[in-house]
């Protein structure tokens, strides 16, 4: 009896575990997603390399946000969502029945399209993640480290106890990035982080992404082709819920294999 249980357990572990090749952080395997009856993602396969920036581009409504939200199971908050397929993180399937959403989100942080700081003080915004995860860290140190990493320390160091909502939009977005860094994730997902920002704030965040990839793996959704070309190492082009082309950014931008990719990149789309 016990032997049998052990066997089942072992099988379970085996099916939830799949060693990824060295250098690969995440792997998406035949992933499908439905909102109710409409399919938003159709059999996507892609790899996300460690300490690299992967950009996802594509026309509006093609499923970029949906896909990136699948990487930390944020889609679970929408009741109608149903998924099939696997997303592997360091060889563990995050869509396995035994996977723990909270643990996954701790490892895979996320920055949203619209800056969404909590209505707390700046310091408490940063510390919140440590608090809810029961991390035993000194508040001052975490706050300083994260704000410095997100290149906003100089601007806010004298007003850490002020409400975060008093910051400008660009500052709020960098604060949100700092907040995501506080829980020391391994992967950072960014869904159009610059869409509400001016060119200067955008440039700051792009520099920041270049910094971040030393320590983290970054996945970024963007509407801005130049931005994808500037910051990313790999690019995925999506259209109508399908992954049309995926490869090194240089290759995608210089000689795309698919006609549709070329049309989109050169702006002759439609």
């Amino acid at each position, binding site marked *: 009896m016990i032997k049998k249980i052990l066997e089942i357990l072992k099988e379970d572990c085996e099916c939830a575990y799949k060693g990824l090749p060295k250098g690969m952080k995440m792997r998406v395997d035949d992933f499908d997603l439905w909102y109710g009856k409409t399919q938003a993602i159709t059999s996507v396969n892609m790899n996300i390399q460690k300490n690299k920036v992967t950009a996802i581009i594509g026309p509006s409504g093609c499923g970029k946000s949906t896909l990136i939200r699948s990487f*930390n199971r944020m889609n679970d*908050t929408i009741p109608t969502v149903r998924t099939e397929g696997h997303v592997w993180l360091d060889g563990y399937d995050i869509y396995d029945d035994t996977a723990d959403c*909270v643990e996954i989100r701790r490892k895979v942080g*996320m920055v949203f399209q619209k800056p969404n700081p909590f209505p707390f003080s700046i310091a408490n915004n940063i510390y919140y*993640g440590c608090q809810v*995860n029961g991390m035993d860290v000194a508040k001052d140190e975490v706050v300083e480290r994260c704000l410095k990493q997100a290149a906003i320390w100089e601007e806010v160091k004298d007003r850490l106890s002020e409400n975060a909502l008093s910051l400008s939009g660009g500052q709020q977005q960098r604060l949100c990035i700092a907040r995501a860094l506080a*829980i020391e994730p391994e992967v950072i997902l960014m869904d159009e982080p610059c869409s509400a920002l001016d060119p200067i704030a955008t440039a700051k965040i792009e520099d920041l992404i270049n910094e971040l990839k030393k320590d983290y793996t970054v996945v970024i959704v963007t509407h801005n082709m130049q931005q994808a070309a500037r910051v990313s190492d790999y690019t995925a082009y999506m259209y109508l819920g399908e992954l049309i082309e995926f490869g090194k950014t240089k290759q995608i931008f210089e000689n795309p294999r698919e006609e549709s990719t070329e049309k989109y990149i050169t702006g002759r789309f439609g």
Partner: protein
Amino acid sequence: MSIRKLLAIWIFFVSIVISLIGFHSLAVQSEIEYWTMAGSLILLSISGHACGIHNYSTKKDGKNLFMLIYGSVILTIAALSFYIPDVLDLRPWEIYARIPDHFFFALIMLFVGIFTSYLSFRPYHNYNKEGAQSGALYVLHVTILLTLLPLFIIIFNIIFRGAGGITYEFLTEDIVSMGEQGGVYPAILGTLAMIALTAIIVLPLGVGTAIYLAEYARKGLAVRLIRTAVNILQGTPSIVHGLFGYAFFVLIVFNGQKCLLAGALTLAILTLPIVTRSAEEALNAVPGDLRDASLALGATKWQTIRKVVIPPSLPGILTGTVLGLGRAAGETAPIMFTAVYFSGAGTPRSLLRPVQALPYHLLSLYRLVGYRDVENQAWATALLLLIIVLGINISAIIVREKYRQRF
């Protein structure tokens, strides 16, 4: 100042006076003679004609004709009112009422007055957009005034008649000889105890239900059932709550003994929908972005609710709760079968003993008016009840403002 403007100002003041006469007549039931009304309307109509003719002669325009036509309409109304019978007898339609003509005269004067003063803004501003704009603003002000006026009349009436009865003795003594003498001390304590107990019962229940509905429940049959139940509960007359409280709490749970706890439970059921609804609205007003942000940081759902969703919605929840309690404090029907005695209950000592309460005390005194000399006591009780209810509501506002500054 041009003649047009002077005429407009004149029309404005005449019509204001006319509507005030109409309002006064309605309010204190003083009689308006036919000739008073017809005379004032004719005065208005002449002014309107003058204004119309003057405008039309300076600038031929369809709009300028309007005052002229309006003046004729008022004249027609004045003439037609002559045919209103002295007394309109509704009894042939089996409605046992008789409406005297001065009632109609007052109504006509009130409405014609308000409408004409509204119209006078147009000639004043030479029939441009500005005129329509300030006329609309004026009507809004009149509406606000008409809404607030009855409230102030009631409040001042109660204060005026009740203030004399509130003495040290009234506040600190038990009732003596059917309320003719003594005070309402036990009833004050009873009401306060009842509200406090209701709050203790209703807050966790209401907020818990609201959190479940707003945060956890998926939109299925169960949620719709709960929500419908809450709505039905809210629409139920309070006397039904009282009878239910008597049939269930008093007869079954407490063995036929009226008591403080039974009253508080009944009031809790009465206020539950108000608390649940306002709490749910407050929770729903917290942007979904914040929930996503919290979840994405590895917080559990409960941590998210506790630390991100509830704090900003607390002012809303508290306001709703206190408003509900304010209503509960003034209710008579739910407690009269379940918790209160008119006299003899004394100060509240146990949850399982009956109490006295201000609303029921007021009702009992009202029933005695005419048989006993309790009128002053009744007004004083009404004032006291008003102070308590207003006090509760004002404290809600203060608490809300305090909290708002923090977030």
